[in-house]
């Protein structure tokens, strides 16, 4: 006979007995006998679904059955079974979700983690209790979000303000064709919840700024940077250093990627590597330079791996090492990084002790409120009319040859912006000239250059070939 000790409060249901003798091969059998004998005790121990209530722990002798064989734990017949509630609390107003144990559903789901000694039950609980925030739900954020959710990271924050565009689908695999036009936050959260409904997803529908960064990031253990611009990169870096949180960094360009872990323990930060931002416009973004769609998958998964390693506390973190990946050569290389003692943020005597204006730091001035520009610009409909009338003018396309292959306006002469200074002599400075590119940005530079070189009648086609497709000829593809 095994003996079940009855807590004081429950003795009213056991005829005031402080212990009840039961037979039974397992803990489940023993408890069933107890509730069969004293039916009124049942609702105190089990919920409506017949599961042990969340606060009820069962001990066989001195062992919690969660760490034995749960309610299938075998009994010889001489054991003492204790019913011990788990009790906690505190003045803190908001309760953290308790992650003291995995549910059976979770155990089945994470089985292939649980049987890896480096993860196991302890590691899986660490993942469940972990709070990770991803900055951006784009190329890097897509694999990150999917795999962190699948791995069972308990709480994942996402900061993003963008909507899903057709040009994202070549690499941002967390979004699908049906999500076009939806907020990336909603689309990403749906995909992650579909993979793992146990994950709590916090959505921040905003762009990270000096005003909100510390407040948003402070509740998380690890920050994963999936941004594509320098002001946000410096902002994330500085915020992580100030908050003493590791910054799992990745960046991509065409066929090459980089990844490392900044601001972790005594390791370097992004500013130790790049004290100053590059001049604006020098380093192209994915939208400007293009990227192999698979590349962010590769780098995002390096980031996901490092994030999970940091949570588990296993292996050697990618700290003080910049991993360089070259997809064309299919090679990984490593550069050693050291913390710079003179670093303005993480150095011995930091001069940056709060967040600054990162747009200004990166030399990006907010565009002055533009008076509607009529000088030097022409809209797509007017260009179309000029072409139809057969006006004597020259339309030049300042994009790259591979862009010209994707979409073109008939009759346009291709002179890539980079070649324009050398090829100005091909053009007549007195002629009526219209320049265009994809969106109107590069062609404005071309117009400025030509005006400085004495061209008298040059205009920029506003909105570029994208506007042409929208307003003149929808058969021209947008890219």
């Amino acid at each position: 006979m095994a003996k079940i000790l009855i807590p004081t409060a429950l003795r009213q249901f056991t005829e005031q007995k402080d212990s009840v003798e039961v037979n039974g091969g397992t803990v489940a059998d023993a408890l069933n006998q107890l509730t069969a004998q004293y039916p009124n005790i049942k609702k105190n121990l089990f919920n409506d679904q017949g599961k042990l209530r969340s606060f009820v722990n069962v001990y066989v002798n001195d062992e919690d059955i969660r760490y034995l064989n749960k309610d299938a734990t075998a009994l010889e017949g001489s054991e003492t079974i204790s019913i011990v509630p788990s009790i906690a609390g505190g003045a803190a107003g908001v309760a953290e979700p308790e992650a003291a144990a995995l549910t059976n559903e979770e155990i089945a789901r994470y089985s292939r983690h649980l049987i890896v000694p480096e993860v196991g039950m302890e590691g899986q609980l660490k993942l469940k209790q972990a709070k990770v925030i991803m900055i951006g739900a784009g190329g890097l954020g897509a694999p990150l979000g999917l795999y962190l959710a699948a791995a069972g990271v308990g709480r994942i924050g996402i900061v993003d303000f963008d909507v899903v565009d057709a040009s994202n689908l070549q690499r941002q695999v967390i979004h699908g064709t049906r999500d076009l036009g939806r907020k990336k936050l909603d689309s990403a959260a749906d995909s992650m919840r579909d993979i793992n409904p146990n994950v709590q997803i916090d959505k921040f529908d905003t762009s990270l700024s000096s005003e909100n960064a510390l407040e948003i990031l402070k509740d998380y253990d690890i920050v994963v940077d999936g941004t594509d611009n320098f002001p946000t990169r410096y902002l994330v870096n500085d915020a992580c250093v100030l908050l003493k949180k590791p910054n799992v960094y990745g960046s991509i360009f065409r066929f090459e990627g980089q990844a490392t872990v900044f601001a972790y323990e005594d390791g370097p930060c992004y500013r130790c590597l790049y004290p100053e931002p590059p001049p604006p416009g020098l380093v192209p973004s994915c939208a400007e330079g293009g990227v192999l769609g698979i590349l962010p998958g590769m780098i995002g998964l390096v980031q996901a791996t490092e994030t999970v390693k940091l949570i588990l506390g296993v292996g050697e973190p990618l700290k003080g090492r910049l991993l360089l990946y070259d997809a064309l050569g299919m090679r990984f290389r490593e550069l050693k990084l050291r913390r710079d003692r003179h670093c303005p943020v993480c150095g011995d005597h930091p001069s940056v002790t709060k967040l600054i204006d990162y747009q200004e730091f990166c030399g990006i001035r907010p565009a002055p409120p533009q008076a509607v520009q009529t000088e030097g610009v022409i809209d797509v409909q007017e260009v179309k009319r000029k072409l139809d009338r057969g006006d004597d003018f020259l339309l030049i396309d300042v994009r790259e040859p591979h862009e010209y292959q994707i979409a073109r306006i008939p009759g346009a002469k291709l002179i890539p912006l980079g070649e324009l200074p050398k090829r100005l002599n091909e053009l007549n400075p007195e002629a009526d000239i219209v320049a265009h590119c994809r969106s109107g940005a590069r062609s404005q530079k071309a117009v400025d250059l030509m005006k400085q070189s004495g061209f008298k009648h040059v205009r920029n086609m506003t909105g570029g070939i994208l506007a042409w497709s929208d307003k003149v000829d929808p058969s021209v593809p947008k890219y």
Partner: protein
Amino acid sequence: MIEIESKPWHTMVLHAERTYPNECCGAMLGRILSEKKLVTEAIPLENAYAGEKGARYELHPKDLMEADKAARSRGLDLIGIFHSHPDCDAYFSQTDLQNSCPWYSFVVLSIQNGKFAHAKSFLPDADQTQADSEELKWQKS
């Protein structure tokens, strides 16, 4: 109604003040009489919460099991749990409620600037959705 004798009350207040600015916790043993619960012994226990203990506590289930054993060996009952709220009123917080158990009285001691300020007792329900307040008395020595 729950009444705490002067000796255990002194133990509880001392434990709460010494643990300040962290939260303390412990078990209350005694007897359930027809008209009241009488606490005759208080056992200070370790706050086993893994994180910052300023506004959280957790009882180690094994400690609670030991407290229950101690009660049985002395012919007493484990009848309540106490914990402190440093620089915070003695209310039953959402955290308290969601990690509670309906089998015990929960006494909360408010400690302000390191000194005992006031205390209340609560009886949470089985679904951890609400807690009734329970009349609390303590005997001054």
